[in-house]
């Protein structure tokens, strides 16, 4: 069986530490210092997002800007809610769309992955190739026609115009097929089939309970993608109280004095759930996102 490729892509699979000779040690430490400094630079914008969220506009506008937390978080949040009275709604819509999209993806992708991994049917590899090809289509090409399609369906301003089209992604099908092929014992499936289980019941009772890790990875990827989605809502949502969070935050940018403190407070709230998720799941997330790349 050529298709099964087990967890070779998992990070840390190989012992990577080189044997370091003494003269190389200096170069190694220098390299580490540079890479660590680079890592800190990568984190700088996050740091200032949180710091600015706790400072008033005049403090942020002073030179040099504040480097440590201040005491104006409450004022900034009040300012944010005043300029963006729908903020909590927007946050709620973001959660709603992301959770609904994620739940549907888990269901449909696991189902399709089951078919591609465990069942034989005419045209299987053609269908699979078609699914994979859609991953290469650049997203901007859908911007204009999607907005028009949604307006015909009367789905403009409706959150289902974000949830339904994204309910079964190609990446999810790919991840599920990979995982099911490598992790589900065929004998188990055969045994269930001999017992007269219907295919759906085999999936529901036997396969799905074993998909935990893959479902977790897919849930992360889908949730984050939906949470950050900007272009989708931009072309289909019209009213402020229907906006998801990125769209609402963007509306703070306008003419006149930008409320930096309030804006950073809002941005921090939008980023915080992702930071928390990432802190606990970074390895799984990274390996899930790069799995497709290694296979190609």
């Amino acid at each position, binding site marked *: 069986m050529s298709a099964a490729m087990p967890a070779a892509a998992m990070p840390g699979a190989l012992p990577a530490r080189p044997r370091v000779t003494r003269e190389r040690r200096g170069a190694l430490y220098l390299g580490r210092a540079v*890479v660590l400094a680079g890592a800190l630079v990568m984190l700088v914008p996050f740091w200032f997002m949180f710091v600015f969220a706790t400072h008033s506009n005049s403090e942020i506008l002073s030179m040099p800007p504040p480097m440590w937390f201040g005491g104006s978080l409450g004022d900034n949040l009040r300012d944010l809610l005043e300029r963006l009275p729908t903020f909590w709604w927007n946050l709620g819509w973001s959660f709603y769309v992301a959770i609904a999209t994620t739940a549907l993806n888990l269901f449909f992708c696991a189902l399709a992955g089951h078919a591609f991994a465990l069942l034989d049917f005419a045209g299987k590899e053609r269908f699979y190739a078609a699914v994979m090809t859609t991953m290469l289509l650049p997203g901007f090409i859908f911007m204009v026609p999607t907005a028009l399609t949604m307006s015909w369906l009367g789905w403009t301003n409706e959150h289902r115009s974000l949830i339904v089209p994204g309910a079964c992604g190609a990446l999810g099908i790919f991840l599920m097929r990979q995982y099911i092929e490598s992790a589900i014992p065929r004998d188990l499936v055969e045994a269930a089939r001999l017992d007269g289980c219907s295919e759906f019941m085999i999936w529901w009772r036997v396969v799905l309970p074993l998909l935990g890790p893959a479902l977790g990875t897919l849930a992360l990827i889908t949730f984050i993608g939906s949470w950050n989605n900007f272009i989708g809502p931009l072309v289909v949502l019209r009213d402020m109280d229907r906006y998801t969070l990125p769209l609402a935050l963007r509306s703070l940018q306008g003419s006149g004095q930008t409320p930096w403190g309030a804006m950073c407070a809002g941005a921090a709230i939008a980023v915080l759930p992702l930071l928390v998720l990432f802190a606990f799941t970074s390895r799984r997330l990274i390996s899930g996102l790069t799995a497709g790349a290694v296979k190609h």
Partner: protein
Amino acid sequence: MTAANTSRRKPLIPARWAPYVFISPFFILFGAFGLFPLLFSIVLSFHQWDPVAGVAGMHWVGLDNFVYALTRDDWLRKAMFNTLWIALVSGIPQHLVALPLAWFLHRGFGRARNAVTGAYFLPFITSTVAISLVFSSLFSKDFGLVNAAFASLREVPVLGWLVPGQSIDWSQPGYTKWMISAVVFWRYVGWNTVLYMSAIQTIPVDLLEAAQIDGASARQRFLHIVLPLLKPMMFFAVTLSIIGNLQLFEEPFILTGGTGGIDQAGKTAAMHMYAVAFMDGDFGTASAIAWLLFMLIAGSTWINKRLLGGRR
């Protein structure tokens, strides 16, 4: 053995349809919200259309939209130039940094590797809008941190010469694209690093050890073993960069307040398409622009395949 197991058992009647039912959600959804919009967009690109009048308001204009976009739409030319500029200036350094970084993270870090990699990767998964808003404050002229950092670097001997002599107004046309490129670089360098790391992890260790025993230096091993083995991944990662960079939208959109900035110096082709469709209401021309950009992406990917893509 598995093949024998599965082929012997003839499925019952409902089971024969099960696979198609299982995979149908993807195809139904893609048909309705992928394929149909794409075909409609092709049709639209050959029409002039007043959406208010409904489908009856469509007039066949042949290639007029394409001809207009290519010959008379000066903003499109400018936006295409901006797009290519930003794609190259942000894209090339991404790969020049990501490849050696991936190698060093793999070889030079022990238990800390995952944490450090995470720091580089974090920008990739954070909301572009949130982070671009933060960047627009960091890039302010009078109080922005970037200019403050430049000012303090100016005090450092030698290094100070490399830094501009006074505060930069990043909203000026000469600097907007630099600002956008910096943010794009920041956002995607970790993604490319992780891609290269995942490929490096598949390189057999004994191969490198054998070379080491034969006296190959670390540099020789990197240049003559690691790099050639990474070529397929380089092709893949560069392909992703091309596709992503040429349709750049969110970062420039937020950083320039949705306008493209002064003199539209930061307006990308995708932003122009958006403006033509949703500001001017000219969906026909916008669709033509979309397909022109698509052809540019396809062409660039093809060139990349000739340059980097091997047998596959």
